[in-house]
């Protein structure tokens, strides 16, 4: 690929791969991607990026991929994910991503429901999952594996094809039919479905949301160009870290679409375990995280400070108090710094804020976002205080994540912000459900007309399934998922997620599930954060063996009781947690308690721990023989 000064061939429809092609022509030697491999960050320039996409696209053509065919990608975040995604889009096929943590049963469902023709699997682990259910997948023609270790010379399934052989196939096809991919790209239509994104499905099996080129184009305009995702809008000098699953719409925006539109440099984290380390190395200027990550960073700082030396603890205590004041003042000022906060921040910068942000990898972070789940306002305010303003964004797969956002200077904590430009939003007066309408609203669920009818009105309004209210007529506050609203036996409507988030704001609590639908009072199942509570126990010389053992300690119960009491004192009596029980295990995706995006499957939990729940409602002793906690 060499640089040419000729203008790019005109296309009728702008697409994500077309953006990468144009940038590769304009700026071929600039670095587009970096991936840490063998200890150093290997670089991929824009020219190499596009060259790879072309090879893969030709490879797909050589395998007979026709417009509208589905190509599944089952991999951690890595450049090959992007090559496969863009190549699929370039040949007008449909990308379908799977979570690396999906167990074989879900892989089977997703591949057969989407009718995927090609599967790009990262390694032996993912190939095994597909092969285990390969008999049920008549549509699956080829499995392309990226890492040959454990597969090459061992597996002899005729459908297997290594990534290298696949590229050779593509290059041969490219030499024989050089312009075919370009022709396919030029014939792209706005209504082409570009990707299937399966919603996490806290109830029932996942549904595949179809996003078209037009949806994505609107999303890119609203979220990237106009700063709806990162504000101020990203540019070529920005640096990002890709670590959340790419099959989720939020990370797809943050990694693929932001990168293609704005020319940022994407860094791929080695794995989810090394995110903290990679963050420090990369020091991204833009950072999007789900609440769980923000909570983890916050809790991690508390743990490490607790074991710091005296002088450092005093220094931290002093300046974090100042940070609290800064955060408070900024929140009251709509997220804007005031003259006073600027002075205070400047004073604290050399003592704490600079080094603290450097250590957690947010020193260069100029725009941060949180989304995909509700976050506790306390956490946001804390990060405002240390100089990392996080803007909460609201959206869902079905509207390509374009709904509302908190904009700098107009932040209202506890709300998800104002509707994005070009987005209509109304709240149903009867049910309180939020409805949105904009060109990013999806084309429907894949092969599921019933669900589409229930969600999408004929005139384009999307039922979000979230209940919300207007705040001051401009901002939207989400109360809860519609189906999660609890109506107690006393007839009170209670939103569990608000209470849960208040409890989870404590660094000691990882999971909280509030129960009380058609019950006389509210109760909760609470899971502790093993890291922080373990550290807490160690400092108190409290011996423990396993998670379960630690959770059962009376001292830990007392600790959690304190957290629950704190929350109870702030809410109305109908919303108070009367009793709680500790979860005996860490919730897990594999065991069906969490979705792939780590959201709690409420129904599954209440079924699985029915004994514990009944124990809190006068069933005497709980199933496991432990007495339920009682709040005063």
């Amino acid at each position, binding site marked *: 690929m060499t640089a040419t000064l000729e203008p790019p061939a005109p296309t009728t429809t702008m697409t994500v791969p077309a953006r990468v092609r144009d940038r590769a022509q304009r700026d071929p030697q600039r*670095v587009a991607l*970096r991936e840490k491999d063998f*200890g*150093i*960050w*290997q*670089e991929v320039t824009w020219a190499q990026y596009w060259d790879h996409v072309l090879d893969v696209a030709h490879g797909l053509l050589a395998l007979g991929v026709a417009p509208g065919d589905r190509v599944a990608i089952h991999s951690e975040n890595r450049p090959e994910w992007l090559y496969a995604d863009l190549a699929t889009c370039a040949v007008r096929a449909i990308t379908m991503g799977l979570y690396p943590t999906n167990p074989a049963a879900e892989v089977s469902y997703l591949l057969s429901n989407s009718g995927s023709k090609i599967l790009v699997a990262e390694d032996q682990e993912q190939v095994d999952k597909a092969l285990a259910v390969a008999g049920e997948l008549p549509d699956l023609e080829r499995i392309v594996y990226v890492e040959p270790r454990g597969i090459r010379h061992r597996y002899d399934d005729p459908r297997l094809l290594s990534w290298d052989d696949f590229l050779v196939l593509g290059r041969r096809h490219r030499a024989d039919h050089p312009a075919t991919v370009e022709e396919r790209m030029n014939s792209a239509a706005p209504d082409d479905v570009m990707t299937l994104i399966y919603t996490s499905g806290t109830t029932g099996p996942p549904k595949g949301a179809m996003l078209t080129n037009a949806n994505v184009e609107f999303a890119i305009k609203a979220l990237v160009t106009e700063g709806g995702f990162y504000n101020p809008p990203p540019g070529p000098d920005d*640096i990002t870290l890709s670590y959340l699953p790419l099959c989720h719409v939020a990370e797809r925006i943050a990694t693929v679409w932001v990168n293609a539109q704005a020319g940022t*440099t994407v860094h791929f984290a080695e794995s989810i375990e090394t995110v903290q380390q990679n963050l*420090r*190395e*990369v*020091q991204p200027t833009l950072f999007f995280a789900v609440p769980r990550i923000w909570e983890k960073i916050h809790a991690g700082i508390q743990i*490490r*400070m607790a*074991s*710091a*030396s005296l002088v*450092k603890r005093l*220094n*931290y205590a002093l300046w974090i108090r100042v940070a609290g004041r800064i955060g408070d003042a900024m929140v009251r000022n709509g997220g804007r710094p005031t003259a006073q906060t600027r002075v205070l921040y400047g004073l604290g910068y050399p003592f*704490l804020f600079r*080094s*603290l942000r450097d*250590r957690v990898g947010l*020193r*260069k972070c100029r725009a941060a976002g949180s989304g995909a789940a509700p976050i506790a306002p306390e956490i946001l305010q804390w990060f405002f205080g240390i100089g990392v303003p996080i803007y909460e964004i609201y959206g869902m797969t079905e509207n390509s994540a374009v709904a509302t956002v908190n904009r700098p200077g107009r932040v209202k904590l506890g709300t998800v912000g104002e509707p994005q430009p070009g987005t209509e939003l109304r709240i149903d007066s009867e049910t309180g459900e939020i409805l949105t309408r904009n060109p990013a609203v999806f084309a429907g669920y894949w092969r599921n007309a019933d669900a589409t009818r229930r969600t999408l009105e004929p005139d384009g309004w999307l039922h979000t399934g979230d209940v919300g209210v207007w705040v001051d007529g401009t901002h939207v506050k989400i109360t809860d998922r519609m189906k999660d609203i609890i109506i107690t036996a006393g007839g009170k409507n209670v939103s569990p997620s608000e209470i849960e988030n208040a409890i989870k704001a404590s660094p000691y609590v990882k999971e909280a599930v509030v129960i009380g639908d058609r019950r006389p009072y509210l109760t909760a199942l609470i899971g502790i954060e093993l890291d922080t509570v373990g550290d807490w126990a160690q400092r108190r010389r409290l011996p423990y063996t396993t998670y379960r053992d630690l959770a059962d300690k009376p001292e830990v119960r007392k600790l959690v009781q304190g957290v629950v009491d704190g929350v109870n004192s702030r809410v109305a009596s109908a919303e108070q947690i009367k009793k709680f029980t500790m979860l005996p295990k860490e919730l897990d995706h594999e065991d069906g308690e969490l979705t792939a995006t780590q959201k709690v499957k409420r129904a599954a939990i209440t079924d699985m721990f029915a004994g514990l729940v009944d124990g809190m409602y006068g069933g005497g002793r709980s199933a496991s023989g432990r007495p339920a906690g009682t709040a005063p």
Partner: protein
Amino acid sequence: MTALLTDRGGRGSRPRGRPELYTSYSSDIALLNTPAKRAGVLAIVAAAFALPFAVSDQVLVLLGTGLAMSVGAIGLNIVTGYAGQVSLGHAFFVGLGAYTAAVLSGDPDGRLVGFGLPMVVWLPAAGLVAGAAGLLVAPLATRLRGLYLAIVTLGLVFLGEHVFREWDSVTGGPGVGRDAVQASLFGNSLTAGGAVLSGAQKVYLFALVVLIAAAVPARNLARSGVGRAFAAVRDRDIAAEVIGVSLTKAKLLAFTISSFYAGICGALLYTITRTVEPNSFNLLLSVRFIAMVLIGGAATISGSIMGAMFVTLLPRFTQQVPRFVPFIGQGVTGGGLLTNVELEAMLYGLLIIAFLIFEPRGLFGVWLRVRNYWKGWPFSY
């Protein structure tokens, strides 16, 4: 040399302000791999070059001696710190270097043997002769280790002392000695005072340049495959052999390089002190070098320099002590409970014990602690 000092190798294009984001191996293993290190080293070197214009000649001579000793300490650290081979014979190699330089540079018409050769000949020759001697001794090290090696190298010192004492035509004999090295560069004497610089200033700068030229390759050696082989031999010689490190080659190399540095140190040292006395290359000198390595920090180059400067400057401080402490007398003949010379000897012992117990990594370890304290800020780990 610039390739060693900068991280411009490879196609590294790391974004600004991200010192830990390495895009090529050469930048990862660069000696000065962060901007802070580059700035720090630059500041220290600049300060070292500015020093002669700020302090008195007397202090400069002392500092110059420290710089010369640093070269020798680096040498001992290579064989003892990096490769783990205890050597008590370092003084012998220093003596070899000193006499080689003195003979080659000496007055051809003088009382003793001399050839009147220029510095470009005698300085490398001092290193090479000592290095060759090291190469001859090294086979002993390949057969022995630990205590046995220490005893054998101890024998070397006594052997050397005897030869130096008896070979009058070269050394001038005990109690008499001979004129030391005649150093000149392009006809300008490096030791006599001139129009611009005094003799002490010149000799200090000369020692500084030689030290930098010696320290950088040594530091580079430590991070290379050879350096890693040394460390493997030190940590467990059998394991090193199993992973393919040739013990013979590693030990041979360690002794040769170490002795080469000792030779350079000897030549440099007696450029500064002006006379060579055969009795000075005794066990005490070897022990002083070991003290430098232990106090400075084993297996570190900057630690060797710190240790050498510390040990060299220590007498200067103990000389001041009698003024403030009444029961410590001045000089050998001074009254009081202790003399400052005795105090100095005791301090050596105390310092070595204290460092081994409290900070086995020496002064370098102290520096590491200080650095990590601030590096970890606001956390403790």
